[in-house]
């Protein structure tokens, strides 16, 4: 596969919605250990809305799909994850412009732009025990989707040992160590879904 179109990204986000629906309990459980026990349920609400919206009025370009998804997350999720994931997808969508098909490399670049925006918005860096610890290695491995999924998973696993410096887990200080960051865990789900959809092509 060398080109992605709007349908591909719609399949991706549909699969994310399924995965988040399936894993909402686990994500909320992770958030209950070092946060406020809402991450899974918030994301499920958001991605349900994304999936429903994409089905009702499917945007025709890859950029429009991501921009729509980003806006929807921003206006339905709330909390920290809503603006962060929303910004990721909105910026990525913007970066893709209006083309009907883009090569894998362009999608990778766009998602890198989105992840950079997450860093700017939240002020977190690699190693702060946030979603970025899964997102950064994942987008670095693109356009190899399978490698990106694996990098995200490993990045999420590696957050277990870290001490949080951003988000509400940082309130716990050293007590935040020993738990996986919920946002990193959900980021891993995003890239697992991307790899699955890519592999299915």
């Amino acid at each position: 596969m060398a080109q992605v179109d709007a349908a591909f990204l719609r399949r991706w986000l549909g699969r994310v919605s399924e995965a988040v629906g399936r894993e909402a309990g686990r994500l909320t459980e992770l958030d209950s250990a070092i946060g406020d026990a809402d991450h899974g349920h918030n994301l499920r609400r958001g991605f349900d809305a994304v999936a429903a919206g994409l089905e009702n009025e499917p945007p025709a370009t890859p950029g429009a799909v991501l921009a729509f998804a980003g806006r929807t997350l921003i206006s339905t999720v709330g909390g920290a994850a809503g603006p962060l994931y929303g910004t990721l997808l909105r910026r990525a969508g913007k970066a893709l412009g209006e083309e009907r098909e883009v090569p894998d490399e362009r999608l990778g670049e766009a998602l890198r732009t989105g992840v950079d925006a997450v860093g700017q918005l939240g002020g977190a860096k690699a190693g702060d025990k946030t979603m970025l610890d899964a997102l950064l290695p994942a987008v670095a491995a693109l356009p190899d989707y399978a490698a990106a999924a694996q990098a995200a998973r490993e990045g999420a696993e590696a957050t277990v040992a870290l001490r949080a410096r951003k988000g509400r887990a940082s309130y716990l200080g050293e007590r935040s160590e020993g738990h996986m960051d919920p946002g990193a865990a959900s980021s891993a789900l995003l890239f697992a879904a991307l790899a699955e959809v890519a592999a299915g092509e």
Partner: protein
Amino acid sequence: MKMLINGAERVVADALRGMAEAHPGLAVDVDNRVITRSDAPVADKVALVSGGGSGHEPLHGGFVGPGMLDAACPGEVFTSPVPDQILRAATSVHGGRGVLFVVKNYTGDVLNFDMAAELAEDEGIEVAKVLVQDDVAVTDSLYTAGRRGTGGTLFVEKLAGAAAEEGAPLDRVAGLARRVADSSRSFGVALGAPSTPAKGGPTFDLPAGELEFGIGIHGEPGRERRAMTGAAEIADVSVAAVLDDLKPTGPLLVLVNGMGGTPLLELYGFHAEVRRALRERGAEVARTLVGNYVTSLDMAGCSVTVCQVDEELLRLWDAPVSTPALRWGR
């Protein structure tokens, strides 16, 4: 965990319907999740908008009314509201003299209110923001998201609300709000965890003989676990924490706040110990509030908030307020 609800997804919407029918002084937009004074927009008055996750009632919706907030935006339980919602609140209460956002310092709240501020400014509304970050249990450093906003929010909303009611312009109201935020310190203790509808049970396990010290209001575990102890020692620790940080040189407003699950009987007894501890440290108390004001669902526990005041702030504290949860004067 049993809850008096119709289902986790409906909790906030149901509560808004219930608020709408309970308080004729409020206008509640259930669909868009915005609670406003029923006489909003008040012309020629700076409008105060706050909001945050639900589960802290009466904060913020219970503080909407003359002398305090113009609007509140409740998010899902423990989840900041979304920008659209905050924007709608701002536009519906804007009386032509700008809007002050009262924001508790959590990543989610800050991001969503900031996005809303951009949108509001696009619509020509002048917006100022005050960040409440009063919780001394959190080290404010590069290694944290900064101090949380908790009980001090009540002081900011009351005092800035009174200044707005008097007709002060946006920069003055915002400046005063920041002064109050800077002068407020809180410290909280949990005897048990709250149960959230989403999780369906307690957000953390607390063994029988232990307490969480330095907790927030979102069912996060605290900074530290200690062996269970009595009200006197809990008061000593809490008072020391806030006073050592604030180092007050003038009279204080004191809020002895219940987290939702501690009986008022116990809270009054705890208040007695807080007052003793303040006296022992030579602190002067000007006004007191004891009750469940900034809660964490059904969490058993309490927090102590102090705010140093001068004559102006004391006058604003005593100014009339007429909201569901705080009401005095006229």
